Structure formats: C-alpha cells, structure tokens
C-alpha cells in the first residue's frame, strides 16, 4: 500500500521519490507530477496534527500568491493503511536558505531587503488580506533559486506554528503546547520574520542548542531583541527592522505593507521596547526566581503546584504589592483568590485567572500546560489520537472544556487579540457538545468540528479515504460486504463525522440510532440517516449497505401487525435492499402512516376477536338458560296444542 502511487486532486505522487527538507515536522513528502507533467511535491499530513484545511482551500482558490509556494490541490489518501490528508504544493525553486545547525555565509543587507523582506512582506500582505496567517516563517522554510527572491514554504500542513522552534515565536506562543499555538495574528509572523532575518544575517540559527524553556526564560528576562541577537552585530538597516519586528508589544511591529516596500515605506514608531518594572527582591516559584510580572505569570503557569501554593498562601499578592509596588494588581489578585481556600479545594480555575490578570498577553495556562484558545482543536486531536506525556492529558482537557475555562480566562480584562464574548459562546458550545452523550455528539463531534481536515476515522472504514460524506458513504458501501452480520454500520466516529459535515441537520436522526433499544430498531434508525445522506448527496445505490441494514432490521418487520403485510414486506426487503435504494428500504421498514394504519386495524381486529371469544363463551355457558327456555316454550306449545285438540274435538262431536 505504501508503495502505490497516490492520486491527489489530479496529481500523482510517487512514494518512491521522497523529498527532503520541504515538509515541516517530519511529514512524509514525495515528488508528484501534474497531468501536464508539472513537477510538484506532495505532503502527507498527520491526523493527530491536522492540517489547516480552510486556509489551504482558500489559498488553492487564490490566483495570485506572491512570495508564497502555493498549494495546488488537496485530498484524503490512504497511506500505510491510514487515511491522511495530503496537500500538493508547487515544487520549491531551490534549496532552503539555512537549515537548523547549518552555518552559512551571512546574507548581505541588500540581499536580505530585496530578496527576503520584500517578498515575504508581499506574501504576508496577501495572507493578511485573506484573513490568514502563515506561522511557519523560519530560515529552512524559505526557498530560492540562485540569488532570486525567496518563496515561503508550507505553513498549513500542520496546526499553526507546530514546527516553529521556540526561538521563532513570541514567548506567549512559544510557551504553548506546539499544537495549541492557535492561528495567531500577522504580528506573530512578523516576529518569526525578525528572528529569521537575524539568522540569515548571522549565518546561523539564533539560540541554537538551547532548550525551549531556556529560550523563553532568556526572552522574558532580557527581552526579545537581546535574547535573539545577543552579542552579534547586525547591519544597520536590518538592525532597525529587526528591532521593530521583535518589539515586545505586537502592535508596534511594522506592517506587511511597510515590509513590501522596505525601507521606503517604513513608518517612524516610538521606542518599541518598554522595560517592565522589575523587583529588587525576587520571588521564588519552584526552582525559578522571578523579578517581573511576565516572568511571574509564566513561572506560575509552568510550575503549577508550586505556583498554586504561592498564590494560595498570598505570597504572590504580597510580592506584587511590596516588591513591584503595584497595590491595585495585588488587590485584584486577592479578590480573585477570595478568602483563602482550603488545601483540598480546586484551585485550577483561580490559577488560570490569576495568571491572566498578571500578564494580559499570556496564553491560557491550565494545569501546567499552555495553549491559545483557538488552538484547542489541534490539542484535542493530539490528546485523543496520539496522547503523549508532553501533551495535555485527557482529564485536564475534560476539565478545561467542562469547566468552560476558556470563557473564564477570556473574562479577565487584558489586551488579547480575542473577542471575549465570542470565546464565551465558543466555550459554552464546546461544553454542550463535549458532555452530550448522544450518538453524533460528544468528544468525537468536537474533534471533527474543530479539525475540518480530519478524514473520517471510523474503524468501520479503516483504510478508506473518506474526507467527505459522499466519500464516507462510498467507503462504507465498499466495506459493508466484509462486515460481520449483525454489525451496525455506524459508530461514534462516523456519526460525529456525519453530524459535523451535515451542520447538525441529522442530529435527531443520529441520536435516535444511539437511543435505540434493540439492534433492529437501531438499524431502522440508521437507515433513516443513510437514506437522507443518499438523497442529499445523490449518492450511487448502496446495495451492500442496504443488505446489511435490512438483515439487521428484519426483526423490526415483526412490528407489522398484519401478517400479509409482514410477509409482503419481508419478501420485498431483499429486493429493495438489492436495489441499494435506502429511502425505499427505510419506507418499507418504517412508513409511519402505514404503521399507524396497521396499528389501528390491529386494534379493531383485537376488539373483534375479543368480542367473538366472549360471545362463544357466553353461548357455551348459556345451555341451562336454553333448557329453561325450551321447557317454557314446550309447555306453552303443548298447552296451545291441547286447546286446538279440544276445539277440534268439540267441533267434530257437535256434528259441524
């Protein structure tokens, strides 16, 4: 299977021809050919790190994408027995500019401005117009032919910024789970461009060899610019640009339009770096000693239990008041924590809100992990599909969604690029779906709703490429013949996939399948679902699926009261199933009007049978009454006969 050629939206990928250095995060990447022989590359995405499908579809439709390697097609393919999303990109024009660990000749200022800053500025401008971010700007994702302008590589085959090292991300997103960094804003791309320019100007990656925690700590303690540039000297024009791009306040970074015409279009900005107030005496949270608010927030978030203890004890509020001289913030912290809670009371929500109050730019910290609210979809996929110790545990995710932590976090005043009301609505919707146990709801539905790139992961159609409902139906039809008799051809994954792709229009029908008390009842309810899908999507006949459902639903025919109707339906069921028309099959099994007529007629028949039985019982029981009646009538008849005889006798003797 893995060696077969892959058809992806009119392109043919050759798994025997891998391409190194293009796809991020170790995703499989192969050479591919278009129908006209065009050389392209195909990237296979991982399900646990779903691609940004909406962005890809938007970019495929966009005719002009300057400075960007454009995605050409996407589809779901089967690779090593799994259904995966695959994306076809234009082939990179040349090698990547600078790989991790590689040392190269520093690029000249003019080359950087002309061939890196301006093309990427144009690319970001286009993306900004489309409402998209790239989140993959780094030296090994820039490709150029010779000395020409660079083209920006893939940033959409993984969740946003998943492959970005901590050095290329603002501390607020660098601290997040890689899958949970969220879409972010163009300001995040500008930051990554700033670090990229430093790397290209120095000829090596900055902060190389240091772990993420050390990189983040360095940025927090020394500021972005100092941490990234260090002791190195940058060319004058680049230094100015980098200073702006690495500004602590995202609002002070140059805009893509300025970059596209740099330096002529550059605007004058006030000093970007405004140092945070620092305390002369530090506060120890776990093993970390902090001296400013931002570091405190991050230390609390990363050292959850120690941070909770410090917050619970009031040490944090005291330090903020006395060490940093911020009594207002300290009072707010005390207000958030309320009366000192007992040791065994849940404190996670308070911690989350306290951190948000300390650093308005900080991400959502939850039980020692951090994520951006719009990154919850990818985190959910990672937790459910490939749980790892470094990810967010399922219990923590359950509490995060169940307690509407996102809404609580958003309700804390702060300068966040998120709409608090929208986040509140989203959090309520997530909880509603997450806790709904109906078929077509629950965690699976949230998984598909928040990750539209995911193909259907139902074990029923394992190994089938099903990225859409029609494809899932076709896959199910192919697999139905091989399913064991008595297998209901719908499970939680398939139901959730259908529910999401049908925008909730089949919620009731899907819930009915789950609520069925017998397999036959469930099969009839499933028929209703598949019949509606077949009608809506004008799918081809599905005789195998219909046969499987008909077999399973056969006991439901016993619900027909009228024996002739029952026998007729049984005979017809096989024929209708063979036709593959699920709507007809469903009507045969569950025509509500005919069912009602059948029930009414049966009630009438039952009444008649009961009356007949009672009449028979009465007739058998009334023999004594008949005997009495016979005696009575016999005596009167005899008396009447006697009168007649007497009269005749009198007449005869009178000589008449």
């Amino acid at each position, binding site marked *: 299977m893995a060696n077969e050629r892959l058809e992806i939206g009119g392109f043919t990928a050759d798994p025997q021809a891998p391409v190194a250095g293009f796809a991020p995060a170790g995703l499989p990447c192969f050479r591919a050919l278009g129908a006209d022989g065009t050389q392209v590359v195909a990237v296979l995405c991982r399900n646990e790190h779903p691609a940004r499908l909406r962005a890809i579809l938007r970019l495929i439709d966009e005719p002009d994408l300057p400075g960007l390697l454009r995605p050409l097609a996407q589809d779901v393919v089967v690779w090593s027995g799994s259904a995966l999303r695959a994306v076809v990109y234009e082939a990179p024009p040349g090698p990547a500019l600078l790989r991790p660990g590689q040392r190269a000749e520093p690029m000249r200022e003019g080359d950087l401005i002309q061939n890196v800053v301006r093309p990427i500025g144009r690319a970001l401008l286009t993306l900004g117009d489309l409402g998209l971010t790239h989140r993959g700007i780094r030296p090994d994702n820039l490709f150029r032919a010779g000395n020409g302008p660079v083209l920006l590589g893939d940033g959409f085959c993984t969740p946003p910024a998943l492959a970005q090292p901590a050095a290329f991300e603002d501390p607020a997103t660098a601290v997040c789970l890689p899958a949970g960094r969220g879409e972010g804003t163009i300001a995040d791309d500008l930051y990554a461009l700033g670090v990229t320019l430093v790397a290209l100007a120095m000829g090596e990656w900055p902060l190389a060899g240091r772990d993420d925690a050390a990189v983040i700590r360095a940025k927090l303690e020394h500021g972005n610019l100092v941490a990234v540039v260090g002791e190195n000297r940058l060319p004058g024009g680049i230094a100015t640009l980098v200073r702006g791009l690495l500004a602590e306040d995202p609002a002070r970074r140059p805009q893509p339009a300025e970059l596209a015409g740099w330096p002529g279009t550059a605007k004058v900005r006030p000093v970007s770096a405004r140092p945070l107030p620092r305390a002369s005496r530090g506060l120890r949270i776990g093993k970390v000693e902090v001296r400013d608010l931002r570091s405190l927030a991050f230390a609390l978030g990363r050292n959850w239990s120690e941070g909770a203890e410090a917050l619970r004890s009031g040490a944090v509020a005291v330090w903020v008041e006395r060490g940093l001289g911020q009594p207002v913030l300290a009072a707010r912290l005390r207000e958030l924590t309320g009366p000192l809670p007992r040791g065994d009371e849940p404190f996670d929500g308070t911690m989350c809100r306290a951190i948000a109050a300390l650093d308005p730019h900080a991400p959502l910290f939850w039980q020692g992990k951090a994520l951006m609210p719009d990154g919850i979809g990818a985190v959910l996929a990672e937790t459910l599909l490939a749980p790892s110790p470094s990810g967010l545990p399922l219990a923590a995710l359950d509490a995060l969604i169940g307690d509407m932590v996102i809404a609580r976090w958003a309700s804390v005043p702060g300068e966040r690029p998120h709409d608090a009301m929208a986040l509140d609505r989203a959090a309520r919707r997530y909880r509603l779906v997450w806790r709904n146990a109906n078929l077509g709801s629950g965690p699976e539905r949230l998984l598909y709703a928040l990750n539209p790139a995911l193909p259907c992961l139902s074990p029923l159609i394992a190994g089938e490429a099903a990225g859409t409902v029609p494809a899932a139906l076709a896959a199910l039809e192919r697999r139905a013949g091989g399913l064991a008799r008595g297998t209901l051809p719908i499970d939680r994954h398939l139901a959730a996939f259908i529910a999401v792709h049908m925008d909730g229009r089949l919620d009731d029908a899907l819930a009915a399948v789950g609520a069925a008390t017998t397999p036959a009842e469930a099969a009839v309810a499933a028929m209703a679902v598949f019949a509606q899908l077949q009608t809506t999507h004008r799918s081809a006949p599905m005789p195998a699926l219909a046969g499987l459902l008909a077999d399973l639903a056969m006991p439901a025919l016993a619900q027909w*009261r009228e024996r002739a109707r029952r026998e007729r339906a049984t005979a017809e069921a096989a024929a209708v199933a063979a036709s593959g028309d699920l709507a007809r099959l469903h009507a045969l099994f569950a025509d509500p009007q005919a069912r009602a007529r059948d029930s009414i007629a049966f009630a009438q*028949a039952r009444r008649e*049978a009961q009356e007949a039985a009672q009449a*028979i019982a009465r007739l058998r029981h009334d023999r004594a009454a008949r005997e009495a009646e*016979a005696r009575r009538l016999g005596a009167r008849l005899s*008396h009447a006969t*006697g009168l007649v005889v007497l009269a005749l006798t009198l007449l005869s003797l009178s000589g008449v």
Partner: protein
Amino acid sequence: MGKSSAKMSGDATTARKGRGGGRAPLGFWALGVVTGALLGLALPTGLLLAIGLAPAALAALADRSAGRWTARSVLVFNLAGLVPSLRALWLEGHTLGTLVVVLARLDGLALAYGAAAIGAVLPVVASWAILAVLEARAAIDIARLEQKRAALREAWGEEVERLPVQPLAKAIAPKAP
C-alpha cells in the same frame, strides 16, 4: 337469556300472587260456587268431570312451576279426552244410571286419561325438540364465531388473541338491556 329470565321471574311473581294474593280467594270461592252449583244442578256431569279430570287435578297439584303450563296442558288434553263421555252422558240421559253406564265403558275414561297423559308428556317432548333447535342454533353461532376468530388469527397472527382479554366472569356476564 336475560329476557327469558326476566319473564320467568315475572311468571313466578304472578303465580305467587295467584296462590296467596287478593284474587286467589275469589277464584277459589268462584270454583267452589260453580262446583257446588254444578253438583247441585247437574250431579251426573259434575261427578263425570270429577272422575274424568282427576289427572288434571293431580297435575295441578304436582305442577308448582310458574304459570303451571304443564298442568294447563294436561287439563286441556284431559278435557278434550273427556268430551265424548260428556256427550254420551248428555245424549243418553243425564242420570246417575247413565253415568254408571258411561263410566262402565272403559274406553271413555281411558280416552280421557290417555289424552291427559299426552298432555303431560307433550311439554317434555316439545321442550326436547325446541332445545335441540336452540342448541343447533348455538352450535351454528359458535362455529361462525370460531371461523371469524380463525380468520383474524390468520390475518393478524396469534397475537390478536394473546393480548389482554377480559376475565371469563366478565365475559359471560349478561349484557345490559
């Protein structure tokens, strides 16, 4: 059945009234006056009636049923059998001697007593015949109803009768008129 029971009940009431009600003494006295007048004015006829209608008298005493229809039957048959003897008494001379002659003819009394016997047996035979007819009608009705039940079972299956049925006591209870 309900109707006949009601009627029987009504007859019984009438019988009780006849025996001990206000009209019984009048009838009784009327019978005594008629009998006395008859014995006084027409002694031979009275004696012939007394002897010839003895079975009717016995039947009247024996039949305690409502309406005493068997006794009535015996009476009219007995009377019909005695009419030839009465005729002979009246045509051959209405005297005690003639009465003795008439009584001596055994066929006269035998006819009266035989007719009374027929009058006694006929209600039984007639009731047998009527019962046979009623039973035949009931059997036909039962067969028709069983046929209907079978047809219902054929159309709807055994479930049509397996579902809750009224208790037998309720089923056989007489319907309200």
